[in-house]
């Protein structure tokens, strides 16, 4: 090859790197630690029989994106989300994946085209009660609820080593999603949920 295409390649690569660097990396909120004032949080919940007690944000993202499909025990992960169009789902996708609904839907379709099993696609649940009931009954399920609504039927996971009530918990909801008097309720629910843990 002559030098010209090599220069073009280098120039194009540099351009690509610049585009990457100026992109709004932090706009997604993934992994962002918000520590000022009491805020509502997104709790990630699993079945009590699941021995997993915590995930990193990266692992959670890979579960949401269907790149991680099995728990360490070998059991298949069943991802459960709120129904499309519900604010709770939009908030979960924004916090965990940095995606909107349309982009997430396209991603799921593409994953199936790449050979991911269709059954790995997330289930859609209409209500918080439905979500808690599903996770309570399905050993491999992982779902999301507002931290103030966690009860002793499910187990809230630590994310990056922190519970939803801990300072620096990475999945803080935006103020618009913050329910009233959530802090005390969340604490009580998490204590009760921890006490109700049963061996796998």
């Amino acid at each position, binding site marked *: 090859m002559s030098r010209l295409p090599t220069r073009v*390649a280098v120039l194009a690569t540099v351009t690509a790197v610049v585009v990457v660097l100026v992109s709004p990396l932090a706009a997604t909120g993934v992994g962002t630690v918000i520590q000022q004032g009491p805020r509502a949080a997104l709790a990630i919940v699993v079945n009590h029989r699941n021995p997993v007690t915590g995930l990193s944000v990266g692992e959670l*993202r890979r579960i949401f994106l269907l790149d991680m499909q099995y728990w360490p025990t070998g059991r298949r992960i069943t991802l459960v989300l709120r129904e499309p169009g519900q604010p709770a789902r939009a908030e979960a996708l924004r916090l965990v994946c940095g995606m909107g609904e*349309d982009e997430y839907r396209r991603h799921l379709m593409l994953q199936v085209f790449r050979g991911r099993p*269709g059954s790995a696609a997330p289930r859609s649940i209409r209500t918080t009660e439905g979500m808690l009931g599903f996770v309570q009954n399905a050993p491999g399920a992982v779902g999301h609820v507002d931290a103030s609504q966690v009860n002793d039927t499910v187990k809230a996971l630590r994310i990056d080593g922190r519970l939803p009530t801990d300072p620096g918990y990475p999945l803080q909801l935006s103020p618009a999603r913050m329910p009233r008097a959530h802090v005390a309720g969340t604490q009580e629910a998490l204590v009760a949920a921890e006490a109700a843990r049963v061996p796998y």
Partner: protein
Amino acid sequence: MNAGSPRASAVALRQLAAGLFAGWMAMGAALGQEAVPHTPHGCESDPAEQARRSFVLRLLGDVEFLVQNTDPPSSTWRLGQLDAFFSADLTDRLSLLTEVVVELDEHGESFIDLERLYVSYRANDAFGITLGRFHTGIGLYNITHHHGAYFETAVTRPQLFAFEDEGGALPVHEVGVSVDGEIPTRGLGLRYLFEMGNGQRWTAEDPRPAPSANDHNHNKSTNVGVSLAPDAWPGFRAGISYYRDLIAGPDDLSVASRVAAAYVSYRRSSVEATAEVVWMSHRFEHGGPFTNRGFYVHVGRRFGKVLAYGRYERIRIDPGTPLIGGLTSLAGPTLGARIDPAGSIAIKAQIERDEFAPTFRGRVQLAFVF
């Protein structure tokens, strides 16, 4: 007709594809589209049983208008591929996937190609095995984008990863076995890939290498690859792969083929950037090697609902190269934009320049999935 000839193999493959297509249509009608379990009250009575019964049925297609400044200038409407995709989970770990494409050739004759057909068993995230016909794990584009233009940002694939029957130089399809999985590492997202298959073959009548559905020698192609996607850098991915094959031809003439590929990619909601480079080496068993290189760089940035993208690609084939020497070289930029007015429809427009030809082309494409 010699049953072992490439033409006979192609006919047999098309008959098999037609049969599968008919069966797929019948099954699709019976099952309905993407029967993912769902209950109105949100609590399923038997999640494990529901998980076992998951079927996905999709159709993809595209229509394109092409203008080019040839002499004389020309323009034409073109029908793209009609891609029928079906996958089914037989159990929690066993699944099958078929992809059948119907398309028209330049004479208006329609034909059916079985593009992918495989059964996969996945023990866990660290180990999965696939048997059948799949896309070779060379580079990133070929395992990210299959048939169906809807999922591709641009109107056209990079020429580097063009399909074999569309002038592509790489063995993008393979019949054989593939093993892949995650290498347990803390947050590095390391993955491995190993493939072994029939590789390619060629004939005196048609010296272009073609995927071999029925191998006639013991030399199997192999491909190994590793990739990296660190949790700390969401959207970033990099990888390398190395492919080798001894492409059997007539009169015991064989061509040794080697393909090395490397890529880096970054993809988030508002930005996408990918750079891939491939080295291809071909030589007769007792001849000197011919090495050809190709690369492309793609960048895209979303502005509201519009995704603007640009690509520069270059692939130059030495005419003396065994088997692929007759393929077209290409170099030049592509600029375009894509908008998704509805959830399952994409409208794309792009202009391309080929510095070797040299020509300008303009394309507008409507791509859909349902």
